[in-house]
């Protein structure tokens, strides 16, 4: 049901939906089957941390404690590496056909328990259930399934060379897509015959430890995969351990650089998937309604906790007013609130710390003279929430146009010519992703060529697939995840 009314500033009638009736709550009720305490997963077993310490995992939607998580100290990380080192010879010698079967099993067991994992992911991280249910969990299973099929075809990965495992791989992943990032890291490493020591982010450890249950059920040999939980210190121990033949990190550019410095002087191989400040570029001949949906998906997907989020909107001047006005109308009907509600568009911000960072950067945007728009919306009283936010009159020197906010905040800039759009889009130390909206094929291909970004979405945004390489240029990191290209980053070539 829709009605029209005059928008406050312009003459264009605006559509309104959400403020006529309240939606009834529609919570997802599947049991996430959480334990009250999660131990480390080392050598195929759940073990108490030698550090003797634990920390709490909080539900960011209501600030309630979900579970107690073991804190891995250096001795625990060392035990994990030793277990992985012991397992390596056997795992690497396991025929690819058989290694692949374990990965197929993991994919299937994850599909079996998909809803349970989706609820756990939403409780632990705050993302809308619609996303964890329809994106994170099925995509994680798809990554295991895809890479399973590679395990017995490694001789086709690098023509003219023999591809084999590197050894034990240390991996540290972020909190924005906990299970999915874990799948991106584990699946190619295992398919190639490596063993793994992985640390999930401290605010989102639960689905990794639930996946450990699946690894047990799948009969994966002990030590092939080990999970150590904890915060930055644990991460530094995982990245710096001499037992690692390679480290793979997904997270902020700042931490990525610190790891690169930490590992200077070693011959450790590295893959870095770091931050971004993607331009989403809308030309005057673009299908505007689709573009507006793409812009919304680009910046508000997962509360904007996405390294490839389209956080800088570049709009062609002739359509700027039209795009911005439709965007405001669209943002007004986004539903912010309980992540477990099936109608929620924006869930909870992952942590108090992240909420603080978003608030500080938004305040800097206001202070530096950009114009802020936030739709009227009631945020829950408890929990970490931030309304969808649009900034117009943004200039390239504003912090909100340069720094990664990692929240539901869109900075809008305009341009007049194709060259100006390219120049502005590339004017950033990052280079992870970019979006282009236009009906003109030759322009799409030119933009796709000129944009310095590892992924270019044309007339779409935020699309991912296990077969499609993902990763950045410049300070967004190096190495790829997905496809043959990503698999090769876990290979030793002889």
């Amino acid at each position, binding site marked *: 049901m829709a009605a029209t009314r005059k928008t406050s500033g312009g003459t264009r009638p605006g559509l309104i939906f959400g403020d006529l009736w309240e939606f009834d709550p529609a919570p997802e009720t599947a049991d996430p089957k959480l334990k009250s305490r999660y131990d480390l997963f080392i050598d195929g077993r759940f073990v108490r941390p030698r550090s003797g310490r634990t920390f709490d995992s909080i539900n960011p939607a209501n600030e309630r404690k979900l579970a107690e998580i073991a804190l891995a100290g250096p001795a625990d990380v060392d035990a994990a590496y030793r277990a992985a080192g012991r397992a390596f010879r056997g795992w690497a010698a396991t025929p690819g056909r058989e290694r692949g079967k374990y990965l197929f099993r993991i994919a299937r067991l994850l599909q079996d328990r998909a809803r349970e994992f989706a609820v756990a992911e939403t409780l632990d991280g705050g993302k809308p259930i619609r996303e964890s249910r329809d994106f994170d969990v099925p995509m994680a299973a798809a990554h295991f399934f895809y890479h399973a099929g590679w395990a017995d075809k490694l001789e086709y990965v690098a023509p003219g060379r023999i591809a084999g495992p590197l050894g034990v791989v240390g991996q540290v992943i972020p909190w924005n897509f906990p299970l999915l990032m874990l799948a991106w890291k584990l699946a190619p490493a295992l398919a190639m015959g490596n063993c793994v020591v992985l640390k999930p982010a401290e605010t989102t450890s639960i689905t990794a430890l639930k996946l450990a249950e699946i690894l047990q059920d799948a009969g994966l040999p002990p030590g092939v995969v080990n999970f150590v939980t904890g915060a930055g210190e644990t991460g530094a121990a995982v990245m710096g351990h001499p037992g690692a033949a390679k480290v793979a990190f997904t997270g902020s550019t700042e931490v990525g650089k610190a790891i690169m410095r930490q590992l200077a002087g070693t011959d450790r191989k590295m893959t870095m998937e770091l931050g971004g400040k993607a331009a989403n570029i809308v030309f005057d001949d673009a299908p505007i309604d689709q573009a507006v949906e793409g812009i919304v998906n680009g910046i508000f997907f997962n509360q904007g906790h996405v390294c490839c989020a389209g956080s800088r909107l570049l709009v062609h001047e002739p359509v700027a007013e039209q795009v911005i006005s439709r965007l405001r109308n669209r943002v007004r009907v986004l539903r912010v609130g309980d992540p477990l509600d099936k109608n929620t568009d924006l869930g909870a911000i992952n942590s108090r710390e992240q909420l603080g960072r978003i608030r500080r950067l938004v305040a800097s945007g206001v202070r530096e003279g950009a114009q802020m728009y936030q739709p009227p919306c009631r945020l829950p009283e408890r929990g970490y929430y931030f309304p969808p936010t649009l900034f117009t009159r943004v200039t390239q020197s504003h912090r909100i146009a340069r720094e990664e906010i990692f929240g539901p905040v869109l900075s809008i800039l305009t341009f007049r010519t194709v060259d100006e759009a390219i120049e502005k889009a590339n004017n950033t130390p990052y280079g992870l992703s970019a979006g282009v909206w236009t009906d003109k094929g030759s322009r799409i291909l030119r933009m796709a060529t000129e944009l310095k970004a590892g992924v270019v979405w044309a007339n779409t945004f935020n*699309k991912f697939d296990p077969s499609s390489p993902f990763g950045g240029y410049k300070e967004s990191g190096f190495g790829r995840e997905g496809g043959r*290209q990503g698999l090769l980053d876990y290979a030793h070539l002889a």
Partner: protein
Amino acid sequence: MNRIPVTKTPKVYIGGAFVRSESARTFKVNDATGAFFGNIPQCTRKDLRNAVEAAAKAGPGWARRSPYNRAQILYRLAEMLEARSGELVTSLVRFGAREADAARGMSVGVDRLIHYAGWADKYEQLLGSVNPVASAHFSFTVTEPMGVVGIISPDNPPLLSLLSMLAPVIACGNTVVALASEKVPYPAILLGEMLATSDLPGGVVNILTGFRRELVPTFATHAHLRAVYAAANGEERKAIRLGAAASVKRVRFTDIIGKEWFADSAQGLEAIRDFVEVKTTWHPIGS
């Protein structure tokens, strides 16, 4: 009276021109018998920055050349080297190489250029892909050159190693600032003269001479060098990695030493793969 030979003033090749160091500094090089050979430019950080600027200017044009065209230019370079290999062999021998090694090194060097000339229009089909995604999108992956790449050459063999490192990097559309062997810099200066007559546009390859300890730190930290490809010792490797972290620069070290540069295993697709970025483009299918 015997005729007095005319000696050549050694100059470095930057931006398609032969120049001295901006600092006007030189270092004396003697040949293998200990006799005076010449004064070689002792390039500075400022020379390196000028060379990076020249390479950056040449970059977009070189990257836009068709792979077929880049292949022909690399082949032309091989033609230039083959024709003047006597001169190169003489220079290598003068600085201590055995005649047979120098001659073999030159033939391997020319063949290596041809090897990479052939790669220029082939690597894309091996490194890129069309991705069978599950949604209704056309998703394809292509490579792009990284930009300006710094190359730090080993001393032995001074010319073949430099050629082997340069060729894959420019074959895929990058431009280069290279540091020649500190001990035997003259063959690299000769190579510059051949590059200048090879149809390779000025600025695509720039070759500096000078001291590693003065220049390696700037190779590591210069933010416009998007990658460094180096033969380096442990301490230098650490310095390069530390400097590279500041701008998330790509680093490739070569472990090939001495005679190993002569082998076919010292060439191949991996050296190209390490100096291209991988870009994936998506577009919906339908309507």
